[in-house]
């Protein structure tokens, strides 16, 4: 140091070397225990206001597959969960002869579904017993469920977070970290394992969802009908702007090719393959996005199905009367909506499941009817 002017000033009094007083290690224990109690009590109280919501994820589906022998495998994003309801109906109506197993990759896309199929599901399909016979030999149908988002691909934006979050094993994570270092993409694996560790905690599971705040707000100062409508319209505009991005990222060749490969894989295995487009909530589409996102997507997917020669069920708008009240949010059905759609599908487009019918591979019915 060359001049007194450059000497660092002291920290404010009581701050520099101040350590909280607290009765030694017992004090530390009391501080931690009280903090833990406070967090636990808050979590319990908040769970009463806003209970955690659980949905079936890839891991649940794989656990089910371990001890099930399904006849129909459904791949898709969150929308595949409708087939859990359809599974119950099909089992009831066929006395358990037909069993549908859905593998819902939340916020997935075709490349994601393909990864899950080959890395997580196929090993279970192909698993053999000591005699060399398939452990689960009943699979005879493959259903691929899609919406426009599944063919969307923007490199890094949004990051493809669904795979590390929901489908990776620790080995997949470690290999990716070794290759690329720990980054925002593979960190999703760690985040989700952290959520799993605190399964049941609303404070942990609500991170990023803000449902607790909304529920508290509803309790303390409920929004007026007018304010609710304003909020709804604001969110609707947000959702519509997401769909508008489909004009840029939609029908991406990489994703369309992945869809084609999934269908081909099913055909090569000798399965009855169905490609289904899931219903959309009508108000979420403006005339612009209907014409420039949705219609091109429907056409591209129809082309893929025709080229591949598989059954094509386009339930985007032709879906047995699914309408706004059947949706719990902008793209997921209510429980009653799932029932309604499943009933309609089993009565019409998916009646082949109840019949036990299996179309021979490489036949097509692009009209969406039964082959």
């Amino acid at each position, binding site marked *: 140091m060359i001049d007194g002017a450059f000497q660092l000033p002291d920290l404010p009094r009581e701050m520099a070397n101040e350590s*909280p007083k607290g009765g030694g290690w017992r*004090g530390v224990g009391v*501080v931690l225990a009280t903090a833990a*109690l*406070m967090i636990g009590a808050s979590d319990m109280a908040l769970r009463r206001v806003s209970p955690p919501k659980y949905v079936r994820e890839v891991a649940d589906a794989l656990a089910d597959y371990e001890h099930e022998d399904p006849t129909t495998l459904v791949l898709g994003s969150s929308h595949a969960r409708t087939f859990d309801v359809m599974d119950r109906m099909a089992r009831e109506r066929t006395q358990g002869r037909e069993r549908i197993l859905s593998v819902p990759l939340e916020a997935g896309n075709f490349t994601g579904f393909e990864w899950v199929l080959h890395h997580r599901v196929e090993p279970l399909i192909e698993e053999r017993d000591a005699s060399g016979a398939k452990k689960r030999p009943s699979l005879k149908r493959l259903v691929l469920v899609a919406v426009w988002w599944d063919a969307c691909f923007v490199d890094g934006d949004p990051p493809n977070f669904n795979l590390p979050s929901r489908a990776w094993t620790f080995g997949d994570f470690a290999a990716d970290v070794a290759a690329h270092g*720990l980054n925002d993409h593979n960190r999703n694996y760690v985040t989700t394992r952290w959520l799993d560790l605190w399964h049941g905690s609303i404070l942990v599971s609500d991170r990023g969802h803000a449902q607790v705040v909304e529920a508290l707000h509803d309790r303390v100062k409920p929004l007026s009908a007018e304010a609710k409508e304003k909020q709804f319209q604001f969110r609707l505009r947000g959702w519509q702007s997401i769909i508008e991005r489909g004009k840029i990222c939609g029908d991406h060749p990489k994703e369309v090719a992945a869809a084609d490969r999934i269908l081909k894989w099913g055909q090569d295995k000798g399965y009855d393959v169905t490609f289904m487009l899931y219903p959309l909530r009508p108000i979420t589409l403006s005339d612009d996005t209907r014409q420039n996102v949705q219609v091109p997507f429907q056409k591209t997917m129809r082309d893929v199905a025709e080229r591949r020669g598989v059954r094509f069920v386009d339930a985007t708008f032709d879906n047995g009367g699914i309408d706004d009240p059947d949706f719990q949010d902008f793209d997921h059905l209510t429980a009653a909506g799932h029932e309604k759609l499943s009933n309609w599908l089993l009565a019409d487009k998916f009646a082949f499941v109840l019949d036990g019918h299996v179309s021979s591979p490489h036949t097509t019915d692009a009209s969406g009817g039964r082959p």
Partner: protein
Amino acid sequence: MSLSEVELFFFFPVVFAVYWLLPRRAVVQNVVLTTASLFFYATWNAKLLPLFLLSTLVDFAVLRAFARTPAAADDAPEDERAKRTATRRRWLILSLVSNLVVLAGFKYVGAFNKLLALGLPPIALPLGISFYTMSRLGVIIDTYYDRIPPVRSLLVWVTFTSFFPQLIAGPIGRTDLLEQYEQPRRLEASSALRALREVGVGFVLKVYVAAHASTWVNPVFAEPGVYTRKAHLLALIGYATQVFADFAGYSLLALGVARAFAVSLPENFNFPFLSTNPMELWRRWHMSLNRWLFDYVYSFMVTGEGFMNGRLGLGLVIVMIVSGIWHGSTWPYVVWGAMHGLWLFAHYRYDLHYKSLCRKDRTWVARRKSAPYLALGWAATIGFFIIALVPFRASSLGDAATFFRGLVLGGGTETLDAGTMHPALAVLLVVLYHVQAMPFFDSVRARFTAAPAPVRGLVLGLVVVFLMIFAPVGAGTFIYAQF
């Protein structure tokens, strides 16, 4: 890996448990810390780990060479002294060149590549390279000048160089840290409580304040000139809040995590927004960097045989330009550094003049301590600091100029989305954080410090609940990691 991301909750408990369950011997503790730190580094980029280790070994070889060739005693023969000095200088130059070439290579090749259109592929900046290079060079230079004895243990040296809490962004370790690694460490209860407080406050600043303040910042800086004057002003205040909370918060996390291993790192921020003159501000902001720059750049320039011997004011300009270039190799950073250098220079000249007035008439001394003088000094200091953040944040000088125009003249019609109250609360928290450190709050702080353990536990619990509800997802990303 980062101290403010979710992986810390898996990594830290394991290292903490192993560290304290094994025998409390310095060697064992250093092995645990080094292993954990190298793993921490490897999770960022395992391919660059050999480079990190190699440069660590080169510097250790230099330190050992200093040990083999100690500086000659004052009464030693002239030729012996000259010989030893020459040998030691060669080793010093080897260390300086190897460190600075690697640092400059990674930090500035990208800029030359762009400037000269060399077409080289982009190079990732090794994690914390600026910070660990400065830590090492400080020790090497101090050893060369015989201020400290040469480090004898390779393990101590690697532990010092790689200690994971400070690896990404400091605080830049100095020689006193080396002494800590040479002794076995014991964790006192009072230190554990202090660590909890540092981590708690650090998380609030980092994952709540910095993240929410950014919602005022990013849209306006992305399209300067498009927004209203008020939006520009909010973006600038938001950025001052963000950049402080981001770095001070991360530094507190580093201090708290290090303290959990009974390692005491140097403070990095000392309530900088309480400063009443620019010199004071730079002694309170990023203290470990500025101390390093003044000790190893400024002092060498303006003292002894330095090429600017005695030119203290001009030295300030140059050292701040160096600070700007250290932050980044683009013109906005250079301008930012130059602005601060000139500002310090002006203050230095003013201070000399004021001191001469004080010598003539002691009433000037009293005036300097008066509330209006301090308030004016505070407003000028903080005002200038905030204004100078424009080139620091802008992506180009053109954007900075557009932002200034928008700030002064307005011009745009876009307003910031009212959204939530969180950005305003974030600013308020930074204000309160500083206000509580002022002397007239001593008694309040003392009362809280002396509060029964359950009360402090409740506060800690509430802070955690608050963060879990209101800290946005993905708020752990750390701005200063890029430097």
